[in-house]
């Protein structure tokens, strides 16, 4: 404990339910203080840095508990659980995850897209249920040959009229940030046409830009949602957008559930007005609309797009780099421009 007194205290802001998947280790740079620490009341009042464990909210009433905080260090891809306007008003700086999760997030988005388009998980279920060989009754001549023939027919029972080629598709990326940029890069060799929408057109990006999500959806066969959730983007995927995407359209969401009007999405899928969806996030996790369970053109995932040891190790490095920079009065590694958000 004597060593720890020399290290600056950093509060770990974690509401009791929310456990980080990996234990928070001691560091040589700072002394992490959990709410269970006997010295917590002292540090809470004096700590200048706060680490937020998602999805623990950090709102005004929480910030009131940390009167000395100057820097909030986020540890997740999304920051919608942090009241950024409040932070700006209190002159508190906020750092994000930077590109720590970008590769895994992009990989997962492509994985979901391919899974939906090629019905990978649905086909896996089909095989696993023992449905590939279909046993049927047929008049038997040579019994062995007949069974084989029936199996062959069962083989082609798998056929789906709606399984289609990715290379001929127009894929629209909603949000060309850290994750969206890597999604685009990964899509290129598949031969699909890539376009995007973003708050601003990005110079030197070779893909077509559309100023609104509706424009993008009108000109796309699939949409991949990788943008952040804010007041401006809540329900950005709404009935008009789903209609514009069309009956064969596919949505992949690895952003936040609230980016999509979930009730509308379910309606479109159940009524066959949308081609399919790959969803890693939902409006009210872990609740998932049960109507989706029966659909083969939907892939459901329990918020795991960036759930790899590699991503968590990456974000730990980003956190440590930001905290180190803060205490050395150097520029922060992945500071969020709060003016962008408020």
């Amino acid at each position, binding site marked *: 404990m004597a060593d720890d007194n020399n290290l600056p205290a950093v509060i770990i802001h974690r509401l009791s339910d929310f456990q980080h998947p990996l234990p928070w280790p001691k560091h040589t740079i700072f002394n992490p203080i959990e709410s269970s620490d006997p010295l917590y009341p002292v540090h809470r009042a004096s700590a200048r840095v706060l680490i937020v464990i998602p999805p623990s909210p950090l709102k005004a009433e929480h910030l009131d508990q940390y009167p000395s905080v100057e820097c909030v260090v986020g540890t997740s891809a999304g920051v919608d659980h942090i009241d950024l306007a409040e932070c700006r008003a209190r002159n508190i700086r906020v750092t994000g995850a930077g590109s720590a999760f970008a590769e895994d997030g992009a990989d997962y988005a492509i994985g979901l897209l*391919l899974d939906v388009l090629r019905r990978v998980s649905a086909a896996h279920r089909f095989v696993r249920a023992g449905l590939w060989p279909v046993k049927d009754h047929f008049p038997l001549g040579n019994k062995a040959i007949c069974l084989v023939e029936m199996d062959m027919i069962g083989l082609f029972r798998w056929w789906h009229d709606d399984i289609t080629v990715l290379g001929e598709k127009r894929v629209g990326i909603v949000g060309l940030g850290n994750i969206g940029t890597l999604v685009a890069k990964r899509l290129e060799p598949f031969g699909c046409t890539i376009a995007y929408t973003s708050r601003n057109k990005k110079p030197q990006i070779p893909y077509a830009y559309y100023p609104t999500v509706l424009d993008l959806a009108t000109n796309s066969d699939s949409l991949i949602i990788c943008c952040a959730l804010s007041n401006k983007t809540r329900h950005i995927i709404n009935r008009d957008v789903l209609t514009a995407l069309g009956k064969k359209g596919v949505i992949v969401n690895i952003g936040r559930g609230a980016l999509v009007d979930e009730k509308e999405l379910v309606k479109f899928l159940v009524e066959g007005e949308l081609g399919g969806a790959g969803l890693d996030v939902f409006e009210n996790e872990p609740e998932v609309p049960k109507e989706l369970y029966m659909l083969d053109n939907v892939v459901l995932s329990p918020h795991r797009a960036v759930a790899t040891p590699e991503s968590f190790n990456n974000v730990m490095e980003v956190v440590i780099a930001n905290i180190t920079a803060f205490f050395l009065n150097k520029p922060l590694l992945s500071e969020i421009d709060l003016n962008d958000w408020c």
Partner: protein
Amino acid sequence: MENIDVLITTPVNPYLEQELDKRFNLIRLWNYPQKQEFFKNHSDSIRGVVNNPWHPADREFIDSLPALEIVSSYSVGLDHVDLGYCKGKGVKVTNTPDVLTEDVADLAIGLMLTTLRGISECDRYVRSGLWKKGDFKLTTKFSGKKVGIIGLGRIGTAIAKRAEAFNCPISYYSRSEKPESNYKYFPSVVELASHCDILVVACPLTEQTRHIVNREVLDALGPKGFLINIGRGPHVDEPELVAALVEGRIAGAGLDVFENEPHVPEELFGLDNVVLLPHVGSGTVETRNAMADLVIGNLEAHFSKKPLLTPVV
């Protein structure tokens, strides 16, 4: 050409059947469960056969059709056709290369992502209501994993191109090194397996490549390695693969093909690190129709005495 008898062995594609029906006198083999009756009544007139990997054109089959002139296979793989015998008897053989390259490569990447990132298991976790009880586990990152490809032909190259966009270092084994390729070459599959994280089978099935993935290769691949098979089931020693998976000696597998389709070893059904697909590598509407067009184009060319589109023999 409506007088020409063409036999189709399996109901693979309604569009293919419909287009064949328009042009030829199409005979559907599955309508004749009594094989002897069929061969008695039709064998002398059949001049063309449309088959696929599940209906071999072996010696016995070819001999039973004395008027046979052409076998047009609805596949790119030809391990199910006795090419030497066809050549000897003057029977032409065609396949469906190129049109399915991209689809198979897409599926290979899809299999890698679904297997490594546990997407099917995630889906099952949600559908079974388990998410309400707690989070699903962590899975292993795909980007940056070393991908080793057995066979750097059209499909192998297309897979490499896609995996590169995920920053995966690419290496390969081939019958001979390809100097024009920038990828790292290994002169044996065992060496390839010991130097990669994901081993992909993408070569043709021949006498030499049967069981090219055997116990030794699986051991070299190791407990952190994954096997992806979009080639042919017999490329892999299946009982050895099952044992390696059940015993945790390799990390997982994504399999589109099996030694004895449509039978899949049931021991694999209970494993959450294995993805099993019913041979759907080329299974998209566009590609299956493009394959059908090639089959029909080849038959039409043959019967109008024009050059075949995609001859093999």
